[in-house]
């Protein structure tokens, strides 16, 4: 075996250009697969990582109606003590700007403290966010999506009619957090305090709205077990329990299609890389067949003669893989941070 190692090393040392060419070929074959696969992994990881921000809570219960007293009691009996709860109601409605222009929006009426995770990115950056959040709940004020400025011809400081109440536009929401149950919305959103919702008189009998209870657990380790219990306890079609992972997956549904496609692409890349590597190995072994025969004629056993070149291939493969993974982890924009760690 010593001879096999020594001879393999000598061959590598004396045929540098071939070895470099071989290593580059092998590394390039694998890099395509890894790039696609790591992009997919990175995408999934990001969705997973952002899932709490997407939901704005550890878990949520969303219903097309208010929860019954029994259902509320069931939930309260199952969740751990010190679990924080926020209620949000959202629904679609027509709103009107000061010039009388109107259009469909999604009204989000929320409690103070929403969201538990993530935050609103507001246009008025000079304002302290905490203060701004509190201000939304102190008067009849509304935050709107930027596109509504032109659609409703309304600006910050002007009034917006929501139902039977006038709300003052105090800020523009550049990016909102939470409640991402679906990948797309039908209309831009406006945000008001839940305590002002009744004044709008938009939610009367027969109106459709989603009633959402958002929860922040004191200890997230109990979540999986709790989700199972809640799913069993509230098994009606118009009430759904969402963990942040589930919400993340729903919001990332389109990304999942992309992820599936990328899986296919990475499989094809792997297949091509395998064929390429196979040809490379085959070419190498064919090239060395003569040398193996010479070694046999000089008194080497078959094992040693073949091991010489297998070891050489292994060394080149290890170097190619090391180079690939090291450079890839350093330079790939898709390589997930947690994998680098």
């Amino acid at each position: 075996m010593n001879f096999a190692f020594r001879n393999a090393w000598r061959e590598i040392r004396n045929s540098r250009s071939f070895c470099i060419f071989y290593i580059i070929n092998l590394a390039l074959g694998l890099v395509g697969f890894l790039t696609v696969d790591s992009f997919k992994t990175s995408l999934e990881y990001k969705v997973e990582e952002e899932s709490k921000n997407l939901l704005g809570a550890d878990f949520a219960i969303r219903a097309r109606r208010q929860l019954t007293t029994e259902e509320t009691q069931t939930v309260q009996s199952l969740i751990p003590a010190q679990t924080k709860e926020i209620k949000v109601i959202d629904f679609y409605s027509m709103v009107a700007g000061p010039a009388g222009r109107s259009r469909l929006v999604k009204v989000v009426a929320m409690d103070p403290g929403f969201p538990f995770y993530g935050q609103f990115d507001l246009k008025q950056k000079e304002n302290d966010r905490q203060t701004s959040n509190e201000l939304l709940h102190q008067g009849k004020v509304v935050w709107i999506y930027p596109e509504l400025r032109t659609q409703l011809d309304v600006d910050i400081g002007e009034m917006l009619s929501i139902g039977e109440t006038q709300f003052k536009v105090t800020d523009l929401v550049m990016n909102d957090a939470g409640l991402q149950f679906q990948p797309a919305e039908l209309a831009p959103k406006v945000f008001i305090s839940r305590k002002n919702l009744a004044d709008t008189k938009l939610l009367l009998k027969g109106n459709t709205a989603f009633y959402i209870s958002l929860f922040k657990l004191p200890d997230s380790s109990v979540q999986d077990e709790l989700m199972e219990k809640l799913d069993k306890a509230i098994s009606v079609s118009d009430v759904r329990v969402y963990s942040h992972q589930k919400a993340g997956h729903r919001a990332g549904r389109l990304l999942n299609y992309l992820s599936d496609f990328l899986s296919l692409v990475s499989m094809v890349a792997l297949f091509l890389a395998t064929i390429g590597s196979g040809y490379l190995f085959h070419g190498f072994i064919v090239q060395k067949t003569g040398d193996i025969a010479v070694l046999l004629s000089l008194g080497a056993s078959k094992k040693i003669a073949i091991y010489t070149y297998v070891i050489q291939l292994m060394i080149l493969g290890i170097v190619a893989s090391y180079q690939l993974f090291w450079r890839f982890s350093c330079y790939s924009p898709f390589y997930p941070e947690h994998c680098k760690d």
Partner: protein
Amino acid sequence: MQPLLQLKKITKTFHQGEQCVEVLKNINLSVNPGEQIAILGQSGSGKSTLLSIMAGLDHPDLGTIEVNQENLATISQNELSRFRSKHIGIVFQQYHLMRHLTALENVSIPLELQRTVEPSKKAKEALNAVGLSNRLDHFPSQLSGGECQRVAIARAMISEPSIILADEPSGNLDQKTGEEIMGLIFSLCRDRGQTLILVTHNHDLAKKCDRTVILSDGILVEKSAQEA
């Protein structure tokens, strides 16, 4: 005198589809220590096959080969490898040097396989003996044909085998270089008392050997050098 190499009733057949070609038919040959034998024959007559069988690189369908009273048919592959590295040196027409190794490294290989101490020192001496002391670190691609064959000769002789099998060693060389190479092989074998079995189709070379055998249609016919 006990023969160094003895072939008894060697038969070898190659199969090409349904066709069978009997290359060697009931070959018998005895070679004494220190003897130089030429095997003459036309291309395709089976000379190289016979040489491969003598070296233990190929197996006969029938018959036995004894080298140093060791029956090559009865020993394992690993034992055969060890035996070959100690007792048999081979010189090929195409040199068959490892092209990624230097002359010195090529010559060292047999000693390294035998785990001899200081193989490089002995390899330098061997290369010096064939007149290549100034070409130690050259690769085969940097050597002329004659120099490559000298390296191959040094490699075949470095472990001081009792038998040198040479398969048309001057076949790829011009006449002058070929003569130099053959002169080198003959003199080295004589000086060291090694047995030489030379496969060739050159009658002049055959005349320089102690004995000549002719392989024709798979049958070995022994003749004196003058008759050949």
